[in-house]
């Protein structure tokens, strides 16, 4: 029986990892679903949904030769999820400021308390080594509306973090 797994792969970045990984999965009879790859701090990272008629350890074996060759760490989880489960965001939140510990925790705690479900989050540290800046974008669904989020963010802004909320009104045509 075909089932879905979440495959997480981490390693030192180099060209050809996605190609090698997906080729091994394809040859092994797997089908890919949604995936998200990011280069984080020079590391290659990917999470991808893999559907295959096999046990988790068999799926791991498919990727083992490549993992050895490229020194990748591979993790496999059986998942309940399936495709066509997208949720539509109704707000985008752009955050930036001088980097310091606690920005993400403070911003997301305020947002969660105001009814935000985060659907997508991406962040970077930019600027210079001496003066790093933290930049984050979030797409989410504000259960109680964007106005409630604005109010909840006032203390964050007072602390010197720039936060911009943009309602998302998805056009369907």
């Amino acid at each position, binding site marked *: 029986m075909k089932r879905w797994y979440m495959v997480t792969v981490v390693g030192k970045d180099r060209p050809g990892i996605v190609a090698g990984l997906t080729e091994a999965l394809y040859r092994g009879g797997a089908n890919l679903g949604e995936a998200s790859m990011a280069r984080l701090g020079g590391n290659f990272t990917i999470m991808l949904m893999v559907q295959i008629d096999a046990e988790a350890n068999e799926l791991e074996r498919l990727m083992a030769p490549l993992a050895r060759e490229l020194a990748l760490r591979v993790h496999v989880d059986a998942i309940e999820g399936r495709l066509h489960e*997208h949720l*539509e*965001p109704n707000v985008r939140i*752009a955050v930036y400021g001088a980097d310091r510990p606690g920005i993400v925790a403070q911003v997301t705690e305020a947002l969660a308390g105001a009814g935000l479900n985060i659907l997508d989050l991406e962040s970077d540290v930019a600027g210079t080594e001496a003066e790093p800046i933290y930049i984050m*974008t979030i797409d989410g669904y504000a259960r109680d509306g964007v106005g409630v989020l604005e109010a909840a963010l006032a203390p964050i802004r007072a602390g010197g973090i720039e936060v911009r909320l943009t309602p998302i*009104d*998805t*056009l*369907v*045509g």
Partner: protein
Amino acid sequence: MAVLEVLHYPDARLKQVSAPVTEFAADLRRLLADLEATMRAYPGCVGLAAPQVGRFQRIAIVDVSSRPGVRHNGRLVLVNPQVLERGGEVVGREGCLSVPDYTGNVARAGHIRLRAQDATGGYREYGCVDYEARAVQHELDHLDGLLFLDRLVSRRDLFRRKVYK
């Protein structure tokens, strides 16, 4: 009026260029009525182009008047539409009846001026801004075989624009 079947990508017909309308007769009026009935059958849908229902003619309808706080021209019937001017660039999120279960960010002109014929063949000009301009550009793309998937931009592009503009 009839609610017509909407084509879904990967139906290759959605990628073809539609032909100009030359006959302004009862058939056109019937198609316009069916397009409107089909658009209204989908809650939240603000526009529909003839090729989306398998009619490969340069016809689209747009009506964003139901959206709160949006400047609009009411119900637009666009036959053989042509964009005369465009300006500005705004990124916004779009979805499409012909591309179920996906939405993405697309850069569009923030304001456009267009000329189109109406149901009787008379020429009209419209100025559209913001959300309505986006809807018109989305529908006009269909007439050239383009989907919003052809114009996706990343969130990163969006953020840079917003920060540094």
